């Protein structure tokens, strides 16, 4: 098919995704006078950034002494030394500036009596290089993400950013030199496929937490940016690193707070045994998150899970006085009734370790430019937020650093675009003749497929495979088998069939296209995890245990490096962790313990 077969719209810059990072990047571009298009599958203020309620960290020092260097130390340590120290220094130094800017955009932060931004403590944030907790998190009640989106959206309206709402980007356009020239996108309301031709393309598409059967992520998080990047030959970095919570409602994924175990909740297996007594004789059900998660997965993997698929354990509070449950845990009772169909006063809640956040992503530098393996930028391509791997979170993310990541790297990527467009480095190069061919072939295949697999069933198989073979606690044989199984899922996904072939508002087609993206992320995760023969941060393997030579199973000699996964040939490569910060001394490797 020739390029004249789809309409082409021209912009200086196109941003894919309108959550926190996309909106923050858009402000830089629109206020600089660049003609900017922002595509989003949903109205901007309905992005998943809303779910981030805890706060945004910055060493403002409003409540007590604080310093960006201490914040940097905490972030490096939290990352289990896999984070790049130039990017981490950049983020922590920029934090006060972007938070104050956000305040000027109208963000209704909680305040101290003196009128300063109020700050509270948050796990992992310490003063004086890990000495004692520090108050560093800035919040707007429990609506921080929501309030942030509203402030950023209003600023964009003022700057005349052009939004394309209920549009899904399908593929990246690259020319022979590898330069990125925009995206091909689908407008759901018309079913039209359109090219958005731009000098610069920014991915701000969020994470892909829906690759797991149990996930706290909203349905929108299908890793569209990751799928598009992978299909365009861009590597995905450190995709084996995913953050999990121990107790999500099995199936639904909705979180059950740790407070339930604090009130006396007990975890039980299919024999009704209080199995935590075997794993942590002293702390039992109140052991740390990773210990509890690993114990739960071991029970499930050894056949002592509950339910028809033996794939969850039970959180039991039936022994507590109903009056205590009603008084101390009313929200949990409602959630359990609504999302597990179980009244926890009468029966235990099915729970499973649940995926929460993606540390890996499209490789970028601290300027928000997408980079090749050798660190050189891919011309015309930028990324920020959960889709990107700068890498500031490394092997594990600190709470409140996700909203900070959005602000700092959303702004940085925007500044880089403005610089690269104004300096004349990026012109509007001609589109290659065949630029839409692969995308149109993918759509044609969906329209003509017969006798293929159902999208919902294939997605479920993908999610169950990831949960079972590549969950919070990982086993060598399961990972090896998982690689084979996820490649089978890929084959089924290549033959999905949709019954509805209509053009306008065809949600079945959109879900099939989302599945294509989930498949790329699932492969990247499984293959990268199988290969990394150590435990580090959120990647924990049974065959890489805690020993004096390798504390916590971490093997710096062989594995202190970033993974790069390429779609073509399912190939892996590695690159060094950047240990040299921008201005300060390296924070040297040491054992991570809290």
């Amino acid at each position, binding site marked *: 098919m020739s390029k004249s077969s789809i309409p082409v719209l021209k912009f200086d810059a196109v941003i894919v995704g309108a959550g926190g990072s996309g909106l923050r990047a858009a402000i830089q571009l629109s206020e600089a006078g660049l003609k900017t298009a922002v595509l989003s599958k*949903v109205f901007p203020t309905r992005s998943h950034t809303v779910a981030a309620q805890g706060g945004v960290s910055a060493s403002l020092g409003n409540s007590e002494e604080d310093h960006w260097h201490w914040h940097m130390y905490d972030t490096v340590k939290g990352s289990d030394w896999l984070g790049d120290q130039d990017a981490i220094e950049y983020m922590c130094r920029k934090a006060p500036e972007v938070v104050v800017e956000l305040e000027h955009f109208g963000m209704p932060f909680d305040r101290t009596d003196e009128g300063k931004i109020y700050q509270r403590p948050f796990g992992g944030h310490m003063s004086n290089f890990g000495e004692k907790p520090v108050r560093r998190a800035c919040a707007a009640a429990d609506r921080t993400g929501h309030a942030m989106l509203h402030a950023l959206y209003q600023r964009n309206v003022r700057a005349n950013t052009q939004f394309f709402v209920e549009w899904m980007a399908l593929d990246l356009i690259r020319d022979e030199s590898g330069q990125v020239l925009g995206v091909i996108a689908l407008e*759901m309301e018309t079913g039209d496929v359109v090219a958005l031709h731009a000098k610069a393309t920014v991915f701000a598409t969020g994470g892909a937490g829906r690759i797991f059967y149990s996930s706290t992520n909203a349905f929108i998080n299908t890793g569209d940016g990751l799928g598009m990047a992978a299909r365009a030959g861009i590597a995905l970095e450190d995709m084996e690193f995913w953050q999990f919570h121990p107790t999500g409602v099995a199936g639904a994924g909705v979180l059950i707070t740790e407070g339930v175990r604090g009130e006396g909740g007990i975890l039980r297996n299919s024999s009704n045994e209080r199995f935590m007594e075997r794993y942590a004789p002293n702390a039992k059900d109140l052991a740390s998150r990773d210990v509890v998660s690993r114990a739960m997965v071991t029970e499930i993997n050894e056949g002592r899970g509950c339910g028809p698929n033996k794939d969850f354990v039970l959180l039991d509070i039936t022994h507590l006085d109903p009056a205590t449950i009603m008084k101390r845990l009313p929200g949990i009772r409602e959630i359990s009734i609504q999302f597990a169909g179980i009244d926890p006063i009468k029966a235990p809640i099915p729970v499973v370790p649940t995926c929460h956040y993606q540390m890996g992503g499209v490789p970028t530098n601290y300027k928000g430019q997408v980079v090749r393996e050798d660190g050189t930028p891919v011309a015309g391509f930028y990324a920020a937020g959960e889709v990107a791997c700068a890498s500031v979170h490394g092997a594990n993310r600190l709470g409140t650093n996700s909203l900070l990541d959005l602000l700092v790297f959303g702004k940085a990527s925007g500044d880089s675009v403005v610089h690269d467009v104004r300096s004349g480095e990026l012109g509007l190069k001609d589109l290659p003749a065949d630029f839409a061919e692969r995308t149109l072939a993918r759509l044609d295949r969906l329209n003509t497929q017969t006798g293929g697999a159902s999208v919902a069933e294939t997605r479920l198989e993908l999610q169950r495979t990831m949960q079972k073979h590549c969950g919070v606690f990982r086993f060598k044989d399961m990972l090896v088998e998982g690689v084979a199984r996820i490649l089978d899922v890929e084959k089924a996904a290549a033959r999905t069939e949709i019954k509805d072939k209509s053009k306008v508002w065809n949600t079945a087609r959109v879900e099939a296209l989302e599945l294509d993206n989930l498949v790329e992320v699932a492969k990247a995760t499984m293959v990268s995890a199988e290969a990394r023969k150590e435990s580090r941060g959120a990647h924990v393997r049974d065959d890489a245990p805690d020993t004096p030579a390798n504390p916590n199973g971490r093997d710096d000699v062989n594995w202190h490096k970033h993974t790069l996964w390429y779609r073509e040939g399912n190939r892996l490569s590695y690159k060094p962790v950047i240990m040299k910060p921008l201005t300060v001394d390296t924070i040297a490797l040491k054992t991570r313990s809290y």
Partner: protein
Amino acid sequence: MEEREKLNRLRWRCTRRAMLEMDLLLGEFLERIYPTLTPEQADAFVTLADMEDLDLWPLVNGSRQSPDPVQAEVLALLASVRIK
């Protein structure tokens, strides 16, 4: 707009929301309860689905009440949804 198109648009807006809890509740409601609503209730549901999650959630869990009687009926049905 055809009925199929309207329903698909509503399905998208019910299942691509900011929070997982609301994807689950509104998606389930759309499949099981929405087809049984009166035209007035269906309109009230569309209005509710257009709300943002942090505004809708307190209405569903009962910490806030809707002044509109038809909307209150729909909210009671929404609160009765069970995800299995």
